[in-house]
């Protein structure tokens, strides 16, 4: 059987904020899934020897650790806000085109602001 036609993908659409948020929601979700595996690794390491926490702290407070944590934090904040947006839409709220755009921009700007706040305040 020859390859079946598949539906048009990213390349045929004009970029708009709704699809940016949709794509980033999936991408950040995939990153967070990998991060969740890392959390299991850290917990396993700590139950073996809690002193390993000191080494983890040293890595995370270095420049590359901070870049890493900023990226992870943004993924977490973005996916949370985008997820909240989806839950509200599933409940029937914010379902006009204008509302889709407004909540999408709120998700993007809010995620950047919250990430900056979380990285700078503590």
């Amino acid at each position, binding site marked *: 059987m020859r390859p079946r036609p598949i539906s048009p993908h990213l390349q045929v659409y004009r970029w708009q904020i709704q699809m940016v948020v949709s794509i980033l929601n999936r991408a950040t*979700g995939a990153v967070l899934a990998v991060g969740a595996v890392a959390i299991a690794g850290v917990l396993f390491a700590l139950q073996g020897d809690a002193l390993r926490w000191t080494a983890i702290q040293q890595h995370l407070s270095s420049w590359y650790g901070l870049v890493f944590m900023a990226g992870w934090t943004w993924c977490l904040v973005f996916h*949370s806000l985008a997820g909240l947006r989806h839950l509200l839409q599933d409940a029937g709220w914010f379902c006009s085109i204008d509302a889709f755009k407004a909540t999408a921009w709120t998700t993007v700007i809010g995620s950047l602001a919250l990430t900056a706040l979380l990285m700078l305040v503590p």
Partner: protein
Amino acid sequence: MTRLRTPLKNASGLGSAKSGLDHWIIQRLTALGLCALTIWFAVFVIGLAAASPGEVVQAVGAPVNTILLLLFLGLTYWHSMLGIQVILEDYVHMQWLSLLLQIANRAIFFACAAVSMVSVLRMAFSAS
């Protein structure tokens, strides 16, 4: 042998898939739970950023923290597994590879749940 029937011919008339709604519902319910638990987890971890190893074990061992950690881990791996499943369904079209990755997806997140939860419990019970 050439197949003249299209896949649609095999599928039409069979009705809906009969299952799958639970995936949609559980994805949203775990998301709802994670809204609260993720905020708690972030605060918990930020609070431990400067803590000593002993303090970390003590914090994990506090009963409320142990319970919330287990809930957070359970919902996180469940939600992750459902999400990765959909991504694989969307992008992996080779049948044998798709099957392999779907099994691997489940195996990895079940393993993560087991490893992380046992680790938390071991720390909790070793904290005095």
